[in-house]
C-alpha cells in the first residue's frame, strides 16, 4: 500500500506529500503508537502487581522451586516424600506434567482408534450402523466434556466396594469404586537380549523384502510380500524367544564402550559440541539458500528470510557461548550420562539373564487396596479413569467427524478409477482412497490432539493430579501465582508446539507424495 502510493507520487512528478500526510510515515506512527500503548498498559499492570505483591510481602521469582512441597499428590510417579528422593515443589510440578502427558498420550491413541471406527461405520451402507454412529457422534459432541467427565466420576463412584472377588473377572479384571485394574504385561529380564536379536532378524527381513519387491517389479505378478514379511517376522520372533540368551555377549562390549566414553576429556567434548553447532548452522543456511534458488539464480531475499538467517547465526553463537562459557558442566554431563547409559545397557545383558522376554502379572490387593508399584497389575484410579473415559469418548466423536469428512473429500472418481484398474476394494481403499483422505484428515486431527492435551487440564475438576491441579496446590500454599502461571504457559505451549510440529512434518511428507 505504502509502496503504491509513494511510487505513484513519483510517477506523476507531483511534490512529495508533507510528513503528516505521507501514508507510510502515518502507518508506522500508528503502529508504534499502538505498540507503545500496549507496552505502557503492560508496564502499568505489572507495576501495579508488583506493588500489590510487595504489600502482601510475596517475593517475586523462582527460588521456591527447591523448597519441600509439604503436600501429597493423588497419584503419579512419586506421591510422597521418600528417603531416596525428596518431594520438592519442582518435583511435584514435574509429577503433574508427567500425569498430564500420560493421559494425553493414552487419550490420543484410544480416541483415534475409536474415532476411526465410528467414522468409518458412519459411512457404512447398513442402516443400524449408520444411525448408531451418527447418534454416537451427535450425542457425545454436544454434551460438554466437563459434564461427561464428572458424570463418569459419578458413575464410577457408585460402583461396588473393592474386595478380592470384585470384578467382571475376579482376580483378573476388577472394576470397583477404587478404580479399574487389569493384568499388565511388562518387560522381563530377557527382553533386551530378545530385542537385540530381533533387530538382527529385522535387518534380514528387510533385505528379503527388498529382494522380493525387486523381483515383483521386474517379473510382475503378486509375490504376497506382506504375507511373507508377516510369516518371517512371526518365525523369527519365536526363534528369538527361545534362543535369546545367546546375545549375552553384548554385555562386556557395552561395558567396554562405557569405559571408553568415560575417558573422553572435557575439552574434546566441548570442541565437538561447538563444531556440531557451527556445522549445523552453516548447513541450515546453505540448505535455506538452496531452497530459494531457482534455475534463474538466487531469488530476491525478503526481510523475513534475512531475519531467519540472522536468527540462526544468533542461535549458533548462543549455543557455542553456552557450551564454552555459560554452562561448562554440560559437556561433562554429556560424558557422564553417556557412560552411564552404556553402563546401564551393559547391565541389561549381564550374565544369567536369559529368562522370558515378557511377563504378565495380575492385579494385587493388599488390605483392600491396589498395589500400585512394582511388577503388578495395571490400575486406573477412578479419577484417572473418569477423565480418561470422558476425554476419549468426547474427542472420538470429533475425530469420527474428521475421518468421515476426509474420506468423503476423496472424489468418487478415484475409487471408480481404482476399480477400473482391477484393484480389489481393500486394495483401492489402502492404496488410493486412504492416502488421499489422510491429507485432508491430518490438520484437523492434529487440532483434536491439541484439544485433548489442553482438556487434560479439566482433571482439576475431579481431583486428578495433573499440572494445573498441582500448580493450584502450589500457589495456594505459597502464593506464587505469577510464577506458576508462567510454568503452565511454557508447558502447554511446548506441548502444542511439539504436537503441531509432528503433525506438520507428517503433512509435509504426505504433500510430497502428491507430486
Amino acid at each position, binding site marked *: 500500500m505504502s509502496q503504491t502510493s509513494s511510487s505513484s507520487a513519483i510517477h506523476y512528478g507531483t511534490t512529495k506529500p508533507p510528513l503528516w500526510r505521507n501514508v507510510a510515515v502515518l502507518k508506522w506512527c500508528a503502529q508504534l503508537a*499502538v505498540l507503545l500503548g500496549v507496552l505502557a498498559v503492560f508496564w502499568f499492570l505489572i507495576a501495579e502487581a508488583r506493588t500489590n505483591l510487595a504489600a502482601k510481602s510475596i517475593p517475586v521469582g523462582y527460588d521456591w522451586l527447591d523448597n519441600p512441597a509439604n503436600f501429597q499428590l493423588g497419584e503419579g510417579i512419586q506421591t510422597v516424600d521418600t528417603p531416596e528422593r525428596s518431594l520438592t515443589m519442582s518435583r511435584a510440578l514435574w509429577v503433574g506434567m508427567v500425569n498430564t502427558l500420560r493421559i494425553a498420550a493414552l487419550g490420543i491413541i484410544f480416541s483415534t482408534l475409536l474415532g476411526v471406527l465410528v467414522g468409518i461405520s458412519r459411512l*457404512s451402507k447398513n442402516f443400524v450402523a449408520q444411525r448408531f454412529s451418527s*447418534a454416537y457422534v451427535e450425542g457425545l459432541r454436544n454434551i460438554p466434556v466437563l459434564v461427561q467427565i*464428572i458424570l463418569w466420576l459419578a458413575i464410577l463412584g457408585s460402583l461396588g466396594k473393592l474386595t478380592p472377588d470384585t470384578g467382571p473377572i475376579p482376580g483378573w479384571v476388577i472394576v470397583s469404586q477404587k478404580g479399574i485394574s487389569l493384568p499388565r504385561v511388562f518387560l522381563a529380564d530377557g527382553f533386551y537380549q530378545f530385542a537385540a536379536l530381533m533387530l538382527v532378524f529385522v535387518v534380514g527381513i528387510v533385505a528379503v523384502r527388498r529382494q522380493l519387491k525387486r523381483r515383483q517389479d521386474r517379473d510382475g505378478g503378486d509375490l504376497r510380500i506382506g504375507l511373507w514379511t508377516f510369516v518371517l517376522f512371526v518365525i523369527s520372533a519365536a526363534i528369538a524367544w527361545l534362543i535369546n540368551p545367546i546375545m549375552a555377549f553384548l554385555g562386556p562390549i557395552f561395558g567396554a564402550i562405557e569405559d571408553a566414553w568415560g575417558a573422553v576429556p572435557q575439552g574434546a567434548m566441548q570442541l565437538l559440541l561447538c563444531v556440531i553447532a557451527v556445522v549445523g548452522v552453516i548447513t541450515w543456511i546453505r540448505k535455506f539458500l538452496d531452497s530459494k534458488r531457482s534455475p534463474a539464480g538466487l531469488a530476491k531475499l525478503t526481510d523475513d528470510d534475512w531475519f531467519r538467517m540472522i536468527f540462526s547465526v544468533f542461535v549458533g553463537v548462543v549455543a557455542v557461548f553456552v557450551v564454552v562459557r555459560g554452562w561448562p558442566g554440560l559437556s561433562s554431563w554429556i560424558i557422564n550420562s553417556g557412560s552411564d547409559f552404556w553402563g546401564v545397557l551393559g547391565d541389561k545383558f549381564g550374565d544369567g539373564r536369559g529368562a522370558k522376554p515378557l511377563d504378565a502379572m495380575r492385579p494385587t490387593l493388599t488390605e483392600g487396596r491396589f498395589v500400585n508399584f512394582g511388577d503388578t497389575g495395571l490400575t486406573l484410579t477412578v479419577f484417572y479413569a473418569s477423565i480418561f473415559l470422558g476425554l476419549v469418548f468426547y474427542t472420538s466423536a470429533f475425530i469420527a467427524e474428521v475421518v468421515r469428512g476426509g474420506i468423503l473429500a476423496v472424489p468418487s472418481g478415484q475409487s471408480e478409477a481404482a476399480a477400473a484398474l482391477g484393484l480389489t476394494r481393500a486394495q483401492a481403499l489402502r492404496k488410493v482412497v486412504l492416502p488421499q483422505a489422510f491429507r485432508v484428515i491430518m490438520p484437523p486431527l492434529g487440532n483434536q490432539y491439541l484439544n485433548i492435551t489442553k482438556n487434560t487440564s479439566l482433571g482439576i475438576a475431579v481431583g486428578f493430579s495433573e499440572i494445573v491441579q498441582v500448580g493450584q496446590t502450589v500457589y495456594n500454599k505459597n502464593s506464587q501465582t505469577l510464577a506458576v502461571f508462567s510454568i503452565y504457559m511454557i508447558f502447554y505451549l511446548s506441548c502444542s508446539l511439539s504436537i503441531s510440529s509432528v503433525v506438520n512434518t507428517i503433512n509435509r511428507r504426505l504433500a510430497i507424495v502428491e507430486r
Partner: protein
Amino acid sequence: MSDVTMTPTSPSNGASNRTSPLQWVRVNLFSSVSNTIQTIVFTAITLGLLRALLGQAFSEEADWTSVSTNLRLLMIYNYPADQIIRIWVSAAVVLLAAGLSLGAWKVEPGYTVGRLGRHLVGLGLFSLVTRLLLPVHAPDTVRTWLIIIGVVSLVAGVVVQRGDPDGDRVMGFGTVLSGVALTFLAVLWLVPFGQYGLVDGVLVAESGTTVASSTKVPWTVLLIIVVASHRVGIILGRALGRSLRAALAAFWVVGPAFVIFVILRDPAFDWAHVWSTDIPIAAMFGLGGAAVLYFVAAPGKTEVARAVGAMLFAFALFNWVAAFFGWYPMLQKVRISFLIFAIVVLLVPAFAGDRSTRRRVAGGWVAAMVVFHWLLTAINTESTLVITAPPFLGGFVLTVGIAYYVMLASFPLGVLLSLARTSKLPIFRVMSTGYIEVIRGVPLITVLFFFSIMLPLFLPKGMGISDLAAVFAGYTVFSAAYMAENVRGGLQSVRRGQYEAADALGLTTVQRTSLIVLPQALRVSIPNLVGQAIAVFKETSLIAIVGGFDLLRIANSTIPNQPDFLGQKRPGLLFISLVYFVFAYSMSKSSQRLEARLKDAQAR
C-alpha cells in the same frame, strides 16, 4: 448418552411410502452376509448401551425428585422468589424479540410432513424399546408414560404419513412453532408432574397434582407470545422490511444487557444524582456529539473530521495518562465516552452522505449514547434485590447469559485481531499473531484462573472487579483468539480482485474493509462462527470450576449437598447433559441449514 435420538429400527429415507416395511428391512438390513453381521452387531451394541444408560438413570438409589424439586434452582439459582415476575418479564421480552426476528428474517426450516411422520414413528418405537429395557427400579409412572407416548406417537406418525403419501409437503415455520407450543402446553397441563418445593428446607411434595399454576400460566402466556410475535414479525417484516430488521439487530446487541442489568438486577437509582450528574453528561455527549457528527458527516468534510477526531483521540488518551498520575479528576464514563466519540468521528467519513444520511448518523449516535449511559448508570448502581447467596445470576440463566455476552464481546475483538493478523503492517501482525497463538496454546481453565486470581492484583487501588466479571473478561479474551482464526479463514477467501476493485473506486482503507471485505468475509465464516458459539456455550461449564453457580455446579455440588438428596449426582448430571445437548444440537442443526442456504445463495 449417545442414544438420546436413537431410532433403532425406524424406516427412513422416504423409502417407506413406496416399499412395504418388510421389503425395506430386507433391502437395508439383511441384503448380504456382511450387512446382516453389521445389523446384528450394531443392534446389540445399541441395545446394550441404552440398557446401561437406563440402568444409570433409574438405578436403585437414583431419585429423580432431586431434579424436579430443584428445577427452579437449576434455572435461576437463588433469584428471590417474590421478585420472580422479573424473570417472566425478561423471558417474555427475549421471546418476543425472538419470535419477531424469526418472522422478520423469514426463517423456514423446510420441515416436511413426511419427515414429521417418520420422526413420530421413530419416537414411538424408541419409547416402546426403552420401556422394554427399563430396569426393575424404574418408577411405574415412567413405564406407563413411555407406553402412552409410544403408542400415541406411533399412531400419530402412521396417520400423518397416510395423510401425505408423497411425503414432500413442506410445513411452514409458523405451523411447526404452533405445533411445538401446543405439544408443550399439553404436556404442561395434562401430565401429572407432581408439585415439589422446598419450604424452609423441608421437602413438600404433592404428587399427582399438576404443575403449580404460578408456573403454568406464565409459560402459557410465553408460548402464546412466541407464536403470535412470529406471525406479527412476518406481517411487519413485509411492511417495514429493513428498518424492522435493523431495530431487531440493535435489540439483540443491547437488549439482553438491558434485561440483565435493568429488569433482572433492578438498580435502585439515586434520582438526585441521576438528575444532577448522569443525565447532564449523557445529554452533553448525546446532543453535542450529534451536532458535531451532523457537521462532519458531509462528503466534503473528511479533512475536518480527521483533524477533530485525531485531536479528540489524543485528548481521550491523555485523560487516562492524567488519571494515572492523578492530575485532574474525571468520571471514568466520561473518559470512555470521549474515547468512543473520538473513534466514531474518525470513522464517520467512511459513511458520509446526503442530508438524510447525516440525520441518521446523528440520530443513531443519540440513541446509542442514551442506551449506553443508562446501562452504565444501571450497572454502577446498587441493586434493590435481597439475595442470600451473592451472585444474583446462576443456573441456566447464567450459562446462557455468559455464553451470549462472551460471543458478543469477543466478536469485535476477534474481527480486529484477524484484520491485524492479515494486514501488511508488521508490528500489528506480529502482535496479533503472538496473542492468538499464545491464547490458543493454553487451556481455557488456566486463562480463567489467571483472570479470576490475577486481575484483582493487577488493578490499581480502589478499583475492584467482581468474580463473575473477571471470569467473563478472561473468557472473552480467550474466545476472541478463536474467533479471530475463524474470521481470518473468511478474510482469506475474499478474492484479490475485490480489494483491487475497491482501490480502483477510490475507497479509503476503512471503507474498503468495512463495506467490501468484511461483509464478504463474515458471510463465509458464519458456519465456523456458529461452531464457535456452540463451543463457547458448552465450555461455560468451566465456570463451575472457578466459582460461578452454573448448571454443572448446581447439579454436581449444590443438589447433592441438600439434606433431602444427599449424594444424588447422577439424575442432575443426566438432566443437565440433556439440557446442554438440546441447545447445542439445535444450534448445530440450524448452522448446517444456514450453511446450505448460504451455499445456495452463492450458487445463484
